[in-house]
Each structure stands twice: as structure tokens, then as C-alpha cells.
């Protein structure tokens, strides 16, 4: 029976990864659109140089190909939980600063927040499939705590730009990570690789 279970888990994993890759692709294109609208509405130069945003895990990672599946999933999950808190804060700041004046940008921010939350949930599903415990939210929130409030509005605007930029990078990395998860680990036979997405 173990063989059958193994096969069904592998199938489930492939399916979850395939759906995750599509989610990441959609999220990335939405984030890129949002980034442009955000920069324009906030009067920022989209290419402005922004210091690393505190509370945002960098998408770039050294020795990416040496990471285990679990490491990939845990790092992804930590990132999207951080983004969820940061985007929720951005949405709150948007309401406080603009109220009803820029409802379209508010809706776009809320839509991306929804996708980030869905993707985080998706990663938790994958981790459960790996029969790995899913780290509790409280542990992470205690470690990182809520992102600090910037002390000026301009800093707040720049930070929003930095968050969206990093999220766009993460969406690319997540698709690569999930694609990597579907590849058989060495010695277990080859499986057809999934279509390239973002």
C-alpha cells in the first residue's frame, strides 16, 4: 500500500505545485501592474533606489540549487507571511492617507493582498503534504513583530515601492522553487517537467 500512497502523494504534490506556479505567475503580473500604478499615484520615480526594506526577506538567495524542498517551502512561507503583514499595513496607511480619494489603488492593493494570503495558504498545504509541521504564525510574529512604522510619509511611500518590488521578485523565485519541487530528487526516475511560467 505504501507504493500507492507514495504515488498519490507525488501526484497531489505535482498538482499543488502546478497550481502554485500559476498563482505565482498571476500574482507577479498583478504586482508589476500595481507597482507602476503605485509609483505614478505616489509621485515616485519607479526606478528610484530604495534601501532594503526592513521586515522583507530578500528574494535573492545564495546556493539556491542546494536548498532542500523543505527549506524552499519554509523560506517561501516566511516571506509571504511577511508580505501579508506589510501589504495589510500599506492598505491601512492608504485608507488613512487617501480615504476614498484613490479607491482604485486601494482595490488593487487589496487584490494583491488576497493573492499573497492565498499563496501562503497554498504553501502551508504543500508543507503539510511533506508531513512537515507548518510553523505557527505566532512564533513568526513574535520573532519579527509588526513592521516598524516609517517616520515620514515619503519614507512610507518609498517603503511601499520597495515592498512591491521585492514581492515581484519573490513571485519569480517562488515559481522556480515550485518547479524545482516537481523535479524528482536524484535517483528516483525522471518526471516530465512543468511548463515554464513567469
Amino acid at each position, binding site marked *: 500500500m505504501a507504493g500507492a500512497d507514495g504515488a498519490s502523494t507525488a501526484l497531489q504534490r505535482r498538482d499543488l505545485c502546478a497550481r502554485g506556479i500559476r498563482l505565482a505567475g498571476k500574482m507577479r503580473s498583478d504586482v508589476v501592474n500595481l507597482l507602476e500604478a503605485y509609483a505614478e499615484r505616489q509621485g515616485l520615480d519607479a526606478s528610484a*533606489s530604495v534601501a532594503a526594506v526592513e521586515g522583507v526577506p530578500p528574494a535573492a538567495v545564495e546556493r539556491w540549487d542546494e536548498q532542500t524542498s523543505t527549506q524552499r517551502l519554509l523560506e517561501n512561507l516566511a516571506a509571504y507571511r511577511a508580505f501579508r503583514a506589510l501589504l495589510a499595513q500599506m492598505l491601512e496607511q492608504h485608507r488613512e492617507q487617501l480615504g476614498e480619494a484613490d479607491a482604485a489603488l486601494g482595490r488593487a492593493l487589496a487584490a494583491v493582498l488576497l493573492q499573497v494570503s492565498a499563496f501562503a495558504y497554498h504553501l502551508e498545504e504543500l508543507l503539510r503534504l511533506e508531513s512537515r509541521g507548518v510553523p505557527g504564525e505566532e512564533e513568526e510574529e513574535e520573532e519579527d513583530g509588526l513592521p516598524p512604522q516609517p517616520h515620514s510619509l515619503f519614507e512610507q*511611500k518609498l517603503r511601499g515601492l520597495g515592498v512591491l518590488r521585492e514581492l515581484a521578485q519573490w513571485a519569480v523565485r517562488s515559481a522556480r522553487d515550485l518547479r524545482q519541487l516537481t523535479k524528482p530528487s536524484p535517483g528516483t526516475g525522471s518526471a516530465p517537467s512543468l511548463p515554464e511560467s513567469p
Partner: protein
Amino acid sequence: IPVTPRILSLTPDFSTSTLNLKWSDNGSVFPYGLDAFWQIWVLRKETMEKVTEVTYHSKLTHEDIILSWNWTSDLPLECMSHYVKIRCYINVTHFGLKDWSDWSPAEVIPDMDPSGSGVFPLDTVVAVGSDVTFCCVHEEGQNITNMTYGSKPYPMIQLSSRSNAIRVLNASASDTSGTNVVCRFNNEMLEGTVLFVGYAPDIPQNLSCETPNFQIIKCTWKPGRPSGLYGKRRTKYSLFERTCGKNVSCEVNEMNKELACGFPVIPDQKIYDFILGVSNPIGQTESSVVVDITQRVHPKTPEKLTVSGINSTSVHLHWFINGSFAEIRLLCQIEISSGHSEQKLHNISMPGGKLSSYIGQLNELHPYTKYRFRVRCSAADHFWRWSDWSRVEEYTTSEA
């Protein structure tokens, strides 16, 4: 020679670039009624350049009085260090040589982070047409490549080795998210602030109040010229009623053309003397109106219209109106239409009820005819406005 004055406090208000100085006049050591003159100097930068000198006069009262003086800077206080010192001259006739006291020690503005950097003033609000000076304070040795207001670079004025300024004249209304003032350094890093440029609130126009149900009074008005300020800087409204002294803050959507606010009906009060208060960070205004709510009844749409036949030419109509109209008579109008004849209106007046149903009878209808009925109501005495029409209800009279 008088004692050197003692500065009690030097308090900055960075949002308005204002300094408040408090000192004691030491009056208890002098006879009553003497004239005292206080010379106050405001100095800038480590080089203590004098920016302002003023002589302030007071009368001594043989008690120690705390005196206070305000000064508004033409530059944001954060742009450089500011110091204040004070000395005094007492006009006393019989004590020998009269002269100024020594200067007090120079007091520096507290809360200023000498090593701080940033663009100032921070996230402030000004009226359209204002002239504003911004400064970029940076660490020693850092080089500024340019300072922009919106997307436009401005000529820089060096204030000190750590502070450059630009001056924006006749500022125009900013976008919804404000106008960015950005200071770019040669290491590509940015510092900045946001300026919100808008208008003081307009006097609300067409302020009008009515009651739909004798439970709430709904006031509506047109806001006039948009202030250009949004979110927490938006224009805020509150409704104050003089007779009962109650004040209600209004939740409005600043994007709407017409704004509305609800005020609870006060038991046994018919006359309401309203003041609509309006304010935003640039200014405030108000509008007022006095209403007798029994003369400003605008009932809600009649609901649950049903028709029941009495005979082939008469029917009863029943409907419900949400509201307490026990204090007035209602006038209701029934519109009668049928395929081949002209539309007719039938008026019925009746005592108002409290959250109740109403009934009207129509006679002289044609037998075996399909009719369409709808109803609307208003106050019978002191007509103000009709309610909206109810939904249409169809009915076919029975055969003769």
C-alpha cells in the same frame, strides 16, 4: 542692575515652525508697577547668527509672573540649530545707574536631533498660493546632487555645511497623495517629505434638513470647492444643535457631490437650530439653518402595497411606511392607470401613525378591468416633499 532673567522653557512646534519662550519676570524683588523691558534675540547655527531681535514690554506687579512670547520662523526649525537668549531693563528711578541685565545663557531648541537627517518641514499642509522653504539636512560630508519639488529640480541655497534649502513660491494644489519634495545624494540614496497643498473649506451651500420618520433628521448640503485634501487631512463636518446642545460628527465621503449627516430627533422638540461646523488643516467655516421638523417631513417610500377587492368597482389599498408620524396628518396620492384610460391621481388624507400600515379606498372603477396602482405620501399640513413612489401593484376588478 537687574538680575539676569531665567528662561523657564523653550518649546518648538515643528509643524508650524513656531517657538514658544517662557520666562519669569522676577517681579517680587521690585516695587509694584515698574516698567520692564525684555530684549529677546533668536540666533541660528553654531555661529550664533542673530535672526531676530525684539523688545517686549511688561509691568512688574511685585509678584513673580511667567511671561510668554511666540516666534514663527521663516525656515523649518529643523533646518539648523536655533538659540534664544534674553536680558532685561527695569525702569527704576531711585537706585543709581540704570542698565541692561546680563544676557541669560542661550537656550537651544530641545528635541532637535543634531545628527538627524531628512527633508523638512515634515508632511505639512499649506494653502494654495503659499510660499514654502524646504531644507535637506544631511550628515557631514554627504553631497546632495539635487532637490526636486514634484518632478521639477529647484536651485539650492546652502544654509550650513549640513543643510541646503529650496524655496517654492505660490504652491499649486497637490495630487491626492501630496507633492514629494526629494533630496538626492550622490550615493543614490533619497530623503524626502510630502507637502499637501489645498484649500480651506468652502462655506457649505444649500444646507437643508428634513426628517423621513420623526426619528432622525437628515441634513444635506453641497460642499462647494473641493479642498484637495484627503484621508486624515480631509475636511471634517460636525452638526451642532443650539437648543439641546448636542454635537454630532458626520461621516461623509469627501468624493460625493452632495453630503449628508444624521441627527437624532429629540423627544418633544420641534424646532432645531443647527450649525454645521466645517474644518480642515487649512481653515474652518460654518453654515446654519433653523427648521421646524413638522414642516420638513419627507416620508420614506411606502412599502408592501397590496390591493383587495370590495366589489367590481371598489378596492382597498394597504401600504406601510417606516416612521412615526403620529404628530401629523399624512396626505397620500394614489396613481391609477389602466390600459385604455388616462392616468388618474387620487388624494387621501389621514392621521399619521407610529410604524403602521395605512388604508385607502378607491371607488368608481370599471368592472373586470386590469389596473396598475402605486402610492406616495407627504405631510398633509405644511407640504414639504413627496416620498418616492411605491412599487406598482396590478389588480383586475371582478366582473359586474
